[in-house]
């Protein structure tokens, strides 16, 4: 039967290859594809580095590992950065499961930072520490929730495009912070010093990072349970998969959108609280530093699974810190980590294609046929 295929290959030829959707792929196979993609991406990073500075790629990889995992101090920093990024990623995950493109985590975290700083600034030393910390936490959660729920209200009522709305809210948050910074610094420097001594978060096991890591670890498990085993989580999945089905079984879609964005925003606020209360002790317009966007990658790469997000947040922080070390060792611009991260992400994004589709070549057709 198949031999007739090549007979007519004179004037008009059948295409060299065509794309077929895979019915299903075993889990292990999809991970093999992803790992191959990441390895290929590292290879390309090595080549890029070589082209830029003519240094042995092996040196680069070594430098990368040294930069992120090389010492106890670096491991702690890695764990802390991971915790913060993971926290933001967990916060946005319910929204993304609902197919609500919340790219406003940056702003939601920032207003959380702002609320925390405001408590410290205005109330520091005036109320007992326990109350101050409680207020910091509550206001941060509230601020984040408000920032998250505004676009949700419009989405729920008029289907206003949430992607651009949440994005714009980031800038509004930034200038709000700029406004308060100018208000708080009479000299007009817009640089607020660290506020120490009041409202300090408890230090566990002699390390101030432990509390944050612990909080995020608990949050990870809680979020996993929330999304997979609660009625809310189930409703989020239904709304995300099909709004029509949700309406059909009597789920109020606006209610779920609003409720979920309050949660998502509030958790972003929590991240802001941790950043200011536990780490920075002050605020800049750049306090979040683009992590709101990186978090989307963490969440998406993990297919919105909180447990897998531990891995993806590790990957991204590892890249960032490793590449920063490479930039330092090889005397390159501090923009290098963004480039490396970009390359790796492109490969991972691209490899999804090979998980969902397969390419059938003209000559290979006979073997592929099942």
């Amino acid at each position, binding site marked *: 039967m198949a031999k007739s295929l090549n007979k007519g290959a004179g004037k008009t030829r059948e295409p060299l290859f065509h*794309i*077929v*959707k895979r019915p299903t792929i075993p889990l292990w196979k999809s991970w093999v594809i992803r790992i191959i993609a990441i390895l290929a991406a590292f290879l390309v990073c090595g080549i890029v580095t070589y082209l830029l500075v003519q240094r042995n790629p092996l040196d680069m990889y070594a430098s990368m590992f040294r930069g992120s995992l090389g010492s106890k101090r670096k491991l702690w920093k890695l764990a802390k950065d991971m915790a913060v990024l993971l926290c933001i990623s967990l916060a946005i995950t319910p929204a993304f499961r609902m197919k609500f*493109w919340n*790219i406003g985590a940056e702003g939601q975290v920032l207003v959380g930072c702002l609320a925390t700083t405001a408590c410290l600034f205005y109330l520091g030393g005036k109320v007992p520490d326990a109350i101050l910390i409680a207020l910091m936490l509550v206001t941060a959660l509230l601020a984040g929730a408000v920032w998250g729920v505004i676009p949700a209200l*419009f989405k729920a009522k*008029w*289907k*206003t*495009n949430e*992607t*651009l*709305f949440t*994005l*714009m*809210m980031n*800038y*509004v948050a930034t*200038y*709000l912070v*700029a*406004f*308060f910074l*100018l*208000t708080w610094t009479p000299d*007009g420097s817009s640089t607020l010093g660290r506020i120490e001594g009041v409202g300090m978060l408890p230090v566990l096991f002699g390390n101030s990072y432990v509390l944050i890591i612990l909080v995020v670890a608990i949050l990870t498990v809680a979020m996993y349970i929330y999304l997979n085993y609660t009625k809310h989580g189930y409703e989020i999945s239904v709304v995300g998969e099909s709004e029509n089905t949700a309406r059909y079984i009597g789920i109020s879609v606006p209610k779920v959108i609003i409720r979920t964005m309050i949660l998502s925003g509030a958790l972003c606020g929590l991240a802001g609280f941790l950043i200011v209360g536990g780490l920075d002790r002050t605020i800049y317009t750049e306090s979040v530093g*683009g992590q709101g*966007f*990186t978090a*989307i*990658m963490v969440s*998406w790469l993990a297919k919105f699974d909180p447990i897998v997000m531990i891995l993806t947040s590790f990957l991204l922080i590892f890249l960032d810190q490793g590449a920063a070390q490479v930039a330092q060792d090889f005397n*390159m*611009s*501090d*923009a*290098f*980590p*963004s*480039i490396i*991260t*970009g*390359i790796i*992400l*492109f490969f991972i*994004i*691209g490899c*999804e*294609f090979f998980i*969902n*589709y397969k390419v059938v070549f003209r000559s290979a057709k006979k073997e592929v046929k099942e």
Partner: protein
Amino acid sequence: MKYVLDFLLNAIPLGMTFLYGSTGEILTEKAGHLNLGIPGIMCVGAAGGCAMIQALVLAGNVPGVFIVLLGLLASFLAAGLMGLLYSVLTVSFKANQNVTGLTMTIFGAGVMRFIMAGLGQQNHAYLKALPIFRYPFSNLLPGTSWQYMGIMVYLAIIIAVVASLVLTKTKVGLHLRAVGENPATADAVGINVGAYKYGATIIGSGIAGLGGLFYIMNYAGSPEAYKSIETLGWLSVALVIFALWRPHLSIFGSALFGALYLAGSYIPSIPAFQQLGLPMSFTQLLKMLPYVVTVIVLTISSVRNKREDQPPAALGINYYREER
């Protein structure tokens, strides 16, 4: 009156950055692809153009017209290359458009910072070419606000007008719109959907890239400029909705957005405003204007929900012929 004229002479040219960005994004969106990578692409366009101009300036003795032409070309190609990357991932590999776009933005900003840091080692020599880019008013009325009304302002308007004509009056435009509205239909009548998507995205990215170059030549030479370009890029994406996916409307929208963007720093200098005695920090709130207006525009357009003013029907959805 002088204030108003001066303000407009500042606002309109600044707005052209948005015009490049939004015209580019409109072309891409008309092909059905929401390119959130435009900010990063504008960054790369800026860096590519600057690198070429710097090389030409340092080479010496290159006629001004070549500096401009090659600078524009380099900017267009560098940004177009990013468009190619975006197309490979979203058109051929059918990757999620939002995620790809956001990665493009992270990557593009990184590339720009990297290149600009390199150019900074030679003191940003590309800025020496600025007067040529501001031809003709930089010679006619040097030092006044007229100087901003350089050739790239007119180029932006010409590109927008041409884009508008192509979209509405030609067969190519008809085909492109069909691809963005209903790719299966376009495919069924024999339009090469992939080619149109690639073409529109690459050309659109190239045009957006020129916006990056325009901005950096005129307004900023600092390594931190990538942040401004990112911001302007996001606003350009938002402007597309304001312009109802029509490049000729975007000309006015861009001027308005230029005005709003500038208002925050301009209003405080008006004597009448100063008499109000508001604290200096208030100016930061004024800077929220373009973003707040964007949000209002988004909301109004979603409330009105008119059939003719909707995004291309297949926007954001990747096309796969054998989907079933």
